[in-house]
């Protein structure tokens, strides 16, 4: 397993004093109570925590999908809370890649088109992009399914496509939300192998939210969300 030593010391993600609460009926539920995180370029970080601890909330904040009540969030040198809605969307498009628990592929686009979508959104579709998409498909062993629609694929295959989609536009940060939560252990393991391989091979930064000990075992660093705060967990054996 590769440690954090291989990464250059420039944080891709920096959260300081991030707080978030939600109204719940008449009460207010505090979910995050001053979160501090720093993730360096090339790091593979896993965030653990029990259900309802605020993992997904934190992920949404990092993605710029939700805004914090207090604190600041820097991603690739941009303080995203200062961006307006449209700027945040364009920022996500350029700098982030997503892997969702339920794959969230576009059912009406073919496998290849799903991969080309993030590139087309940036207006840079061309031969090079197509080649990159093809090579990624090749690396996950699905090159022969390029023209297939997602609903013809198994869950594991869909998640492999989702991995490719998250990487195809070479983002600064990949966010993964329970990437194996919907897969059987064996398939999950294969998907994790690919995730591990693809992320590290390209020197990408990954923040994954999970319950899975298997995933945590592959991380450079494991964080734990407890009582609204993030603490460094003991490295996996």
């Amino acid at each position: 397993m590769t440690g954090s030593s291989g990464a250059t010391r420039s944080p891709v993600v920096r959260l300081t004093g991030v707080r978030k609460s939600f109204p719940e009926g008449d009460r207010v539920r505090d979910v995050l109570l001053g979160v501090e995180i720093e993730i360096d370029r090339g790091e593979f970080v896993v965030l653990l925590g029990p259900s309802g601890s605020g993992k997904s909330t934190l992920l949404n904040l990092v993605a710029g999908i939700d805004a914090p009540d207090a604190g600041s969030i820097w991603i690739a040198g941009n303080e995203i809370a200062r961006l307006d809605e449209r700027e945040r969307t364009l920022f996500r498009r350029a700098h982030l890649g997503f892997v969702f628990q339920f794959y969230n592929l576009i059912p009406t686009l073919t496998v290849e088109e799903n991969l080309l979508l993030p590139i087309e959104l940036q207006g840079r579709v061309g031969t090079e992009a197509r080649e990159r998409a093809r090579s990624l498909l090749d690396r996950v062993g699905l090159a022969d399914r390029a023209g297939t629609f997602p609903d013809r694929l198994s869950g594991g295959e869909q998640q492999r496509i989702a991995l490719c989609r998250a990487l195809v536009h070479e983002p600064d940060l990949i966010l993964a939300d329970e990437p194996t939560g919907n897969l059987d252990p064996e398939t999950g393991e294969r998907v994790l192998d690919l995730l591990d391989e693809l992320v590290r091979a390209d020197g990408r930064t990954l923040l994954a939210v999970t319950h899975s000990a298997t995933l945590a075992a592959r991380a450079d660093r494991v964080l734990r969300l407890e009582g609204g705060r993030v603490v460094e967990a003991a490295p996996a054996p």
Partner: protein
Amino acid sequence: MSLLGRASRRFLLRHPGQLALTLLGVALGVAVVVSIDLAILSSRAAFAASTETVAGRATHAIEGGAARLPDDLLARVRREAGVRASAPVVEAYAMTRALPGRALRLLGIDPFSERPFRPWLGLGGPDFDLTRLITDAGGVVVAAEVAAEAGWRVDDPVDLIVEGRRVTATLVGVIGEGGDLGGEALRDLMITDIATAQRFLARPRLDRIDLRLPEGAPGEEAAARVRALLPGGATLAPAGARAEEMAGMLGAFDLNLTALSLLALVFGVFLIYNAMTFSVVQRRELFGGLRAIGVTRRELFGMVISEAAWTGVVGTVLGLALGVALGRGLVGLVTRTINDLYFVVSVESVTVTPILLLKGGVLGVGATLLAALPAVREAVLAPPRTSMVRSLGEARARDLVPRLGWAGVAVSLAGVALLLLPTRSLVVGFVGLACVVLGIAALAPVSTVVAARLLTPLLGRTVGILGTMASRGVVAALSRTAPAIAALVVAVSVTVGLGVMIASFRATLIDWLDYTLQADIYVAPPSAVASRSAGTLPPELVQRMSDTPGVAGVSTLRAAEVPSEYGELRIVALDLDPRGEAAYRFRAGDPATAFARFRAGEALLVSEPFAYRHGLGVGDRVRIPGAEGVELPIAAVFTDFGSDQGVVLMGRVVWDRLFDDAGVTSLGIFLAEGARTREVIAALEATVGADQAVFINSNRRLREGSLVVFDRTFAITGVLRALAFVVAFIGVISALMALQLERARELGVLRANGLTPRQVWGLVTAQTGLMGVVAGVLAIPAGLALAVVMIFVVNKRSFGWTLEMTVGPELLVQSVALAVLAALAAGIWPAWRMSRTSPAVALRNE
């Protein structure tokens, strides 16, 4: 095409049922509007074409009114006023067995004066011998197409009924294509020499003299010279003024049809709204995902609005084609009503103009985009989340319920306020009506919540947990169920409301016929237009009829349409048998004195529409044009449904003073004690000579005939009502389908837990039935309001009639039954689909 565009196009194609419903909604809405427009425009265009053919290039016309013009006036106009370009015209309607159901416009002209006026008649062309038209007694000419239709060949005898007189003409030639005006213009024309026309009509007078006056001051001077020569009752007016006035009669009729056709479009909009919203809701998670990976709101907006635009364009194109086809069918219904009520018009082909298509196109695409806006908004506001719970959206919908309820109350009250405004505007009336009905429809969500709250315990006790689920399910998916219920409320209230209006109208009419048809037998010459006078019966015949054994008394009626300061004025001169007085019920005026003053020729009676249209009442004076002209006060205003343009009644003495014309338009015959109707009719028929065509009808047959005309008049209303209901019904199906598909997973779980397909069927059906009950109950006040407004506001403002509203408890039953049946019928397909879906598929589809 961009990948987003491709994804969206494939989504539409992958849901063909949904796409088809949306397209159908757009297409039907557009089709109904276009077809009505087309029918109205075509009948107007045909009327204009035939008027133009007849008026020709005349700049002015001298109209004779009821007394018509003396023959020598033409010579004086030419000699004394110095107007050489002048042509005499005698006009009447001719009917023939060879062309059943059609009336030809018999135009008696002087071929030598014609050339500057109607060159397109092609008189003197190679196809026929002009001299024969002049020299052959009874020579007539028609368009080649008409001759072919009737099966006439040149030299064939042609049997005609011209204003009640049987005559035999000879076809001496055919004319061509109608020149610039086209064949349509000649389609209902029959041309003859003026002397022949006068002989046919046994009336040595002219109906009109067409003039070509120069422009500017010389023209005005010539007009002044002509006016100085005119006998009393005759008028000089720009050509076409009368035709315009006649076409103007159709204003309210057209507006009512247009309002009904727009209703279909409103339902179409609802259907599109439903379908578009559903297609967005289905993709809520997808949109959330797209937003997460960096698709901007603007891009999502573009994607969804393009879907709507494409659907709108395709649906509209289909709708335009369907509308033209439907228009061809409806034009028959529209022209038949115009022929029954207003004037003769014959439409061969429908006139599809670019403007009409453009209007339909803009309306269709515009309505689709408008209907899609809430869906587009929902898509654009989709939060960029990886998952989203539906109940959040529903919570938002439930928060809106009270606000929507209050808005409904406010809109209804605004509608009532509009209706109470002291205006005669029909448009304001329709807008007020729309506000009231839509306001009540806006109460659908709050009523649903209340109904479910009341019914849940009841259903729980009677049906068990499934009953509770059915009732709660309706509220849980309020954002789906409420629009469907609202649409059902509007559709049912329109259907029931219009039904009540028509039934009330019919009941009022039957009541009116009961007292207005006092005589036992009616005699009149056949007429091309039911509500207009045609020919007259000669006084000798009237006398012979009065002397027929079994006849105890006779009322005579003489009707004429004359140009006047009130526009075309229908005047009726009555010589009433005392028993005939009961035929008139007064809305204003003193019955005790009114008839005495009326008989003495000291006062007039006017019909309610006439009084309403011209804002006149008892005591006001009305000027009747005639040889001398006379101005008399109104003694009473009476109820009349014979003409929406209004009628002025005068004693026969007044007529005789004004006009030198002893003819009688119709007779009402009272039988002697013990005389048998059938026998007297046979005796009367025997007194009529072979050259006279008359209809002799018993009281009963005339009443039946009137009701046939009434039912025919409302046939088109029935068609439009049905079409609007169909569109609304499809909308409800699509809403229910959306609701059930959204609940596929929930139903899948239930199936997995042991619910039988039959129970699923029952659950879905219970829900739709419940929705039907709520809609039906709400439709009662809405339908009642609609009926009240149609009867007391729209009818009054359109036609000046006051109808008695007839509404019984059946309205209540009808509303609820119709709504429940419609909801259940609309639920059959969704229920069937959901009960057939395997639980595994339903669960996997999540």
